């Protein structure tokens, strides 16, 4: 069961990697990286539960938060072309 679950996750990881490599648009790549983060969370959760280390789930949850924040930063860059400037005027 461990091997089957891990193999399925690695296969989806490979598909996400292919999408990130091929593109073609920026948002394909961003979504692929976000999904890859989700797969890493799944990998840790599956490995933790099936090898008797359920406390790894805490780590997986923190990865989810890092992944979400990172995706927001990348999307902000893709939309505005920078990370630091105050863009309230650009929104209006």
């Amino acid at each position, binding site marked *: 069961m461990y*091997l089957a679950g*891990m*193999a399925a996750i*690695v296969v989806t*990881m*490979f598909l*996400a*990697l292919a999408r*990130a*490599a091929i*593109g073609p648009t*920026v948002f394909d*790549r*961003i979504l*692929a*990286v976000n999904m*890859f*983060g989700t797969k*890493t969370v799944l*990998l*840790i959760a599956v*490995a933790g539960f099936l090898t008797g280390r359920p406390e*790894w789930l805490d*780590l997986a949850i*923190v*990865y989810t938060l*890092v*992944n979400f*924040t*990172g995706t927001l*930063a*990348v999307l902000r*860059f*893709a939309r505005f*072309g*920078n*990370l*630091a400037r105050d863009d309230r005027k650009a929104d209006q």
Partner: protein
Amino acid sequence: MPPVELLLMLLLIATVIVVARLKDLFAAAMLTGIASLLAAGLFVLMDAVDVAFTEAAVGAGVSTVLFLGALSLTSRREKQERTRILPILIVAATGAALIYGTWDMPAYGDPDAVIHHHLAPELIAETEKKIHIPNIVTAILASFRGYDTFGEVVVIFTAGVGVALLLGGLGLRRRDERGEEES
């Protein structure tokens, strides 16, 4: 090497080759994030959970954002350049030397390795009797090496304050700007 780790390692190699081949630097920055996540997954499977956490936070989180910040100051395309042989040779030689260096290391998880017989047995046997903290790692970090940890915390705090002052002046500048708008 167990099959799952082998697959992840192959994926990591594929990712790095794609990063080296890509001309779109935005995509390359994204793929370095993927490489970090893969490395973090490998570290977790090798029981190095704390290292994995640092790798994910710094590699996939902070350094991707730093790359993007640098990209906003430069071009998003890599300049077309012919492949040069000498750098490839130097990198390959360095990698080969590093792999050669690992041959002398004890096997992964080897209970007879030197590091498991230096201080570890004494600490495992004596820690709870001496200072009544059941978690040995916490006892070492917060008690036996307490001053060391305190120094680390001071260094990180100083670095954080420095970065906050450089970037935003802890909100002082923003208040000034608002004042100017009002006046």
